[in-house]
């Protein structure tokens, strides 16, 4: 008797099939002393939301800012104009306490610069200790729109160890102020390499 377990699988389930999910892992890249990690394919009108997930991003140098930029020419240039906000909550491993504040050094106002994901250079992700890293995500909405700006939202946590060791919880929001389609995205540190870590790109229908 034929059973599901001895069938040859040849049927692609529709994305609308009962029980199927709406989150698709499109691709993932793992750094190995990489100057940057770019996604230059797979960002198109297939999905109206993309999620980039950062798993234990570890820099080769101390206190570098992990950051990103977007491209409208498939990665030839990463210089999209952005206006953003950035704030943080942090506490010290050593002294406790806590702080919530806006950081005007990590936001952008109509700038083509890379957007900090962690705090700016000097107070960025610790690379000094082998267990230090950053993890979190960014949501990018409707990158293929040719009508609207491209909103994004992000949250992450990382360890900073300059002077004292802090846990930073960062919140960034903003938009790429362009009506051209975004079709590539680039991640890097402000200095040094991405020593280790994985970035996963998901599409959400």
């Amino acid at each position, binding site marked *: 008797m034929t059973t599901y377990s001895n069938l040859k699988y040849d049927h692609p389930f529709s994305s609308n099939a009962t*029980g199927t999910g709406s989150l698709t892992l499109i691709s993932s890249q793992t750094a190995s002393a990489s100057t940057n990690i770019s996604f230059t394919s797979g960002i198109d009108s297939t999905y109206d939301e993309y999620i980039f997930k950062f798993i234990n991003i570890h820099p080769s140098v101390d206190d570098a800012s992990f950051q990103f930029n977007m491209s409208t020419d498939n990665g030839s240039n990463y210089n999209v104009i952005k206006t953003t906000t950035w704030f943080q909550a942090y506490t010290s491993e050593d002294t406790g306490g806590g702080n919530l504040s806006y950081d005007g050094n990590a936001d952008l106002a109509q700038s083509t610069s890379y957007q900090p994901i962690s705090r700016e250079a000097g107070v960025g992700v610790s690379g000094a200790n082998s267990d230090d890293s950053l993890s979190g995500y960014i949501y990018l909405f409707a990158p293929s729109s040719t009508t609207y700006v491209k909103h994004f939202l992000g949250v992450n946590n990382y360890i900073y160890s300059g002077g004292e060791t802090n846990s930073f919880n960062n*919140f960034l929001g903003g938009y790429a102020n362009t009506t051209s389609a975004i079709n590539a995205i680039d991640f890097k540190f402000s200095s040094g390499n991405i020593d280790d870590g994985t970035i996963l790109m998901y599409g959400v229908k």
Partner: protein
Amino acid sequence: MSTYTDIRYDYNLPSSVGGAMKLISEQTASASSSISFTSGIDSTYRTYMFKFINIHPSSAGTFTFNMSTDGGSTYAVTKTSTFFYARQNESGTPTGLSYETGYDLAQSTSYQILTDSVPVNNDDSASGYLHLFNPSSTTYVKHFLANMNNTYSIECFITGYGNTTSAINAIDFKFASGNIDSGTIKMYGIA
């Protein structure tokens, strides 16, 4: 040898197959006074997520929501909520992080504000999401969390609860004034 395509389908896939998040329905605005979801909110899922893609108003205003316990006949659930935002104008000022007492609610049946005023230029919009937890509970209040960004730039953080032990079974979205000129709202269930 039998294959999937040549056998009669008689097997109901478990809800865990293919992921735990399911798109239940979506609606696209076209000069719509509001967008309501009046079916699909029940005990099937413990969390519902509403995703907003480029919500564009017909006139500048705040984007809002309310909930219903009577299938959408009335949207007047009592809510207590918080609202804060980070903002930066394209010109670089003002910037900052602020609590907005004008946008929170204290035991009010009014619509909950989800964004600051969304401008009305052709490329302006708001995007983000709203999580609604366990709407079918008849024991607990109904918590919600939202995170939105609208052009200016303003990133808004909203949390609160529908202060009712009746099941929530419908939800309504609209601008404080004017229409939802365009944009898509998707409702997902998360197992």
